[in-house]
């Protein structure tokens, strides 16, 4: 689960004076409980328990708008056991697309052998579809973001094993 998301949950809890918070993602079965130890109203550092699912997935997090501080778009493929490979980080902020159109095949799926010039995804920023190249040679071992998901600069999008 993403550290930043947990940090934000903690900030929200502190602000609202919430002592305990369960977060569940139905898609993956990932459950996290954040508990602030001590009496309510104290500012003791919260403790994070991963109840089930998850595992040490790569940093991953979505930005869908929500009434307070964003929705909890939890990992899908990210929830699988850790994969070998080097993270391919997003070169820009924008919306991630795995294929050129909703009907088209994804540019890159697990198992695909890529070269430096292979287009592996599209990131849309300001209505411009930017084709993103792998810039390295290897095999895709994991896809860490979902089509249509907002991504930030430096966010891992794929794992590529050389």
């Amino acid at each position, binding site marked *: 689960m993403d550290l*930043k998301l947990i*940090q*934000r949950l903690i*900030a929200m809890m502190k602000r609202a004076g919430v002592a305990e918070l369960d977060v569940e993602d139905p898609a993956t079965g990932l459950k996290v409980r954040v508990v602030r130890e001590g009496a309510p109203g104290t500012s003791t550092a919260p403790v994070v328990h991963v109840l089930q699912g998850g595992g040490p997935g790569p940093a991953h997090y979505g*930005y869908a*708008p929500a009434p*307070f*501080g*964003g929705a909890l778009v939890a990992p899908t493929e990210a929830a699988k056991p850790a994969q070998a490979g080097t993270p391919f980080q997003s070169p*820009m*902020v*924008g*919306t991630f697309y795995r294929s050129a159109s909703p009907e088209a095949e994804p540019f890159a799926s697990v198992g695909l052998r890529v070269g430096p010039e292979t287009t592996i995804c599209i990131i*849309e*920023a*300001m209505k*411009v579809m930017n084709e993103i190249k792998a810039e390295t040679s290897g095999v895709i071992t994991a896809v860490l973001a979902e089509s249509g998901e*907002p*991504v*930030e*600069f*430096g*966010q891992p999008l794929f794992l590529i094993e050389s």
Partner: protein
Amino acid sequence: MFRRVLIANRGEIAQRIIRACRELSIETVAVYSTADEGAIYLRQADETICIGPGPSAKSYLSIPAIIAAAEVADADAIHPGYGFLSENEHFAEVCRACKIHFIGPEPETIAKLGDKVAARELAHAAGVPIVPGSDGPVEDEQEAMAVAQQIGFPVMIKAAAGGGGRGMRIARNEPSLVTGYHAAKSEAQAAFGDGTVYLEKFVENPRHIEVQILADKYGNIVHLGERDCSIQRRHQKLVEESPSPSLTPELRARICESAVKVARQANYTNAGTVEFLLARDGSYYFIEVNARIQVEHPVTELVTGIDLIQQQLRIAAGEKLGFTQSQIEFRGHAIECRINAEDPEKDFQPSPGKIELFVPPGGPGVRLDSHCYSGYRIPPNYDSMIGKLLVHRPRRDLAIKTMLRALDEFVIEGVKTTIPLQRSVLSHSDFRAGDHDTGFVERYYGHHPAIPTSGDSR
């Protein structure tokens, strides 16, 4: 009111905007570069988005990255802060095209005021005194000479697109005018891609007086008094205060009224600052309009009790000004010292690095706007500001005492700072007498910038 505001800036001003938004119950989206990753002020935002690497051109100055972040975060407005994209009319236009409110003036206003020749003409048309000079661009050497002879030496040659002292030359006689003209022109061409220059009379050692303006979208314009920013080092302000010790009530009323006239002529909206030069004889001249919130805005907040960032948000969201000119009350005296991570012993070179210990001052009458803390690493990529230390007291002499006390309390270890210089300035008899001008720092610290406090009556 806006639901969600993206802050296209960093450091203390990003934190300042987050504070204003939270008090107005507006959600905040803070964008950051990898150089600012982990900074604590980011935790105060409801959402953070990394927009690029350390160099500003690829992060805080990248219009596509910031607009993309605003789109994915579903922000309905962008606050640009100061510096970076705050006075970039193209950015304001892109915001408008993307249906995102830009918290500032309209792009047309930014463009007009950003062109110094156009701004000068505008002020002149509003009946506001301008520094005597050429009535527009100077086309050649002969024309420059004719203008200089008419207005009298010394004269200043300035780039129309200029800023920060670039494309600027002072000429005290005819030979230096010829060389200065060509030097300014080529410097302007290289720096701004526009070699247009104009000429004006050089006002020797003036005082720098600026007037804070607020204007809503319905033609209501008020001023919030002046700030005296005469303590500068190479056009970088070091100490700002309000009210100015050099204005009589009569002169203050005229200069503030002039500022309102300029704003009205420009169809100005949102917060802005009209800058003037004040000569020793009491004559004053319009210089330019800063079409953004300024670093030293808290000085005005302290004497008026008006939160300028909240006003910016309200105005941009289409609210009417909630007060009239006569309802604005001015109380006491406020002083701001800019605390920068700079080494006075090395000609004020930036001194980035890790702040090992940070103990902020406090107590009655003290305000500190800073994003720093013990363990904070000042990135080398951006400006060197650590924070703005402000005091507010009933009288100027009391404010100076409180500032000296606060500067003494302020502990910053690990990086060099301007605190010793600030202490020295605040202790100086010219400053205490209110008899300083923009030549003060060069005059007293030009050759020995690291002068420690002289033990002068603290």
